[in-house]
């Protein structure tokens, strides 16, 4: 694809362009899990959440695409297949912004440990696979706080795809990336779409400091490792129940 030099009229003014901030001005912490469907990330985050809940820590769990705000629009768009790469991406960004401004940010300022099942990297990987420019996506989500830990669960494509296909009678249109017109066969389309997403994730491992987790390792063993990493990287005592 030919690259087009951005016009100065709309390009960011280098003098005023903000550098991405990694400085945290809140007492809370943010732990996120990322990975393609079937990589085991949700199971692992659930177990981490249970461990922290049972210990009485101040935590909040949030997941991608869960707010009622854009539900009707998403449903409308998906039912009638009206979503383009851009509107699909913007709708999810609006949904994320709502969660970010009304849950994640206030909780981080209030000193909570926030656990997120998928975060902005899902948009970078998935919407990038749909054809949105990486530069445009990075800007779109630049308001999001940077996670303290990003666990990237990686399973070989075949393993992940088989886990999903086996558990689901029929793949949904957008889920299978049918809007991309890669293949008329849903399973085939899903596989190619997931492969593209996987490649996009792989490219972020270094730039975004992902903690790589092998999704083929036994569940309890992987969870032990996850808990160990969280304990090392986050001062958990600050989220511990307050003694009276």
């Amino acid at each position: 694809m030919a690259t087009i030099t951005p016009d100065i009229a709309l390009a960011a003014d280098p003098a005023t362009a903000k550098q991405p901030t990694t400085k945290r001005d809140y007492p809370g912490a943010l732990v996120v899990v990322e990975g393609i469907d079937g990589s085991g990330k949700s199971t692992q985050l659930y177990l981490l959440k249970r461990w922290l809940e049972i210990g009485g820590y101040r935590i909040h769990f949030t997941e991608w695409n869960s707010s009622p705000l854009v539900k009707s629009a998403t449903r409308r768009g998906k039912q009638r297949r009206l979503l383009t790469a851009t509107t699909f991406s913007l709708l999810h960004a609006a949904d994320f912004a709502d969660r970010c401004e009304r849950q994640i940010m206030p909780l981080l300022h209030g000193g909570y440990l926030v656990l997120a099942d998928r975060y902005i990297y899902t948009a970078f990987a998935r919407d990038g696979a749909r054809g949105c420019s990486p530069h445009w996506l990075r800007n779109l989500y630049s308001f999001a706080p940077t996670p303290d830990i990003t666990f990237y669960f990686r399973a070989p494509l075949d393993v992940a795809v088989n886990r999903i296909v086996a558990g689901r009678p029929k793949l949904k249109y957008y889920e299978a990336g049918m809007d991309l017109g890669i293949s008329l066969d849903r399973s085939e389309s899903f596989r190619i779409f997931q492969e593209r997403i996987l490649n996009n994730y792989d490219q972020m491992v270094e730039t975004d400091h992902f903690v790589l987790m092998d999704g083929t390792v036994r569940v309890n063993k992987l969870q032990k490792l996850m808990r160990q990493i969280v304990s090392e990287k986050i001062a958990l005592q600050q989220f511990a129940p307050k003694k009276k």
Partner: protein
Amino acid sequence: MTRSSNKTHIRVPQNGHPAKKRRAPVAAEIPSRFYGTPLPGVRPEELSGTLVVIEGTDGSGRSTQISLLTEWLESQGFAVQTMGLRRSYLVGEDIDALLAENAVTRMTLALMYSTDFFDQLERRILPALRSGLIVLADRYIFTLIARAAVRGIGRDYLHGIYETALRPDLTFWLNVRPEIAFDREFKKSQTISYWESGRDMSLSNDLFQSFIRYQSMIKREFEYLSKRHGFLELDGESSVSAVNRELRKRIASHLGIRSTQYRPSHALSHLWR
């Protein structure tokens, strides 16, 4: 109507694109239809239509002018498509509901508006432009940028979101003083809207003061945007017929229409003053 016969770059000086650019080969001119990277899947060379944007606050006479221009263009044999805020099938009604609740935060609202904008652009406006229609936009990205910017969202961030948008062929700004806009709006609806007076920003408990302060902030953003994007500024306080004459003159020159004579039909004569 083809683009090569247009005189786009004579009358619309745009940053980074001096007037002599029109003599450059067509291939070099294609990127100028978008601000940055074009939307995924769009081939700029297919877009043979013309995009005319009319910006201005509520009470500046935008909608009146668009009704009159539509009639004039149709009488000249041009097919017209219109767009405006909150008119998308995808999220138009959702935004109405959010606004009614007053519970939405600024970033979410800004992104819902951008979804609304791109849904209209991709599914209605680009197809219209591919078919060679004239699109009259009742507000465009500039209002969306100005509204979000006065609420503290970074200008560069906003410009980044809209860099995949189509650059208008002509952008008119109907400039009116906030006091005049207030009078016109109040006369029309006997009240002033919550959002048009920026009441979410806690500027003043007095509705009039709040409206004036908010509209002054928006106006300052527009002055900045006008320089940056080469708006054609018109005095929105002039009579409807005078503003319309100026609009027709500019559009006619752009499209190569010889006659700018126009009298509204009986159906629209009530707008003429």
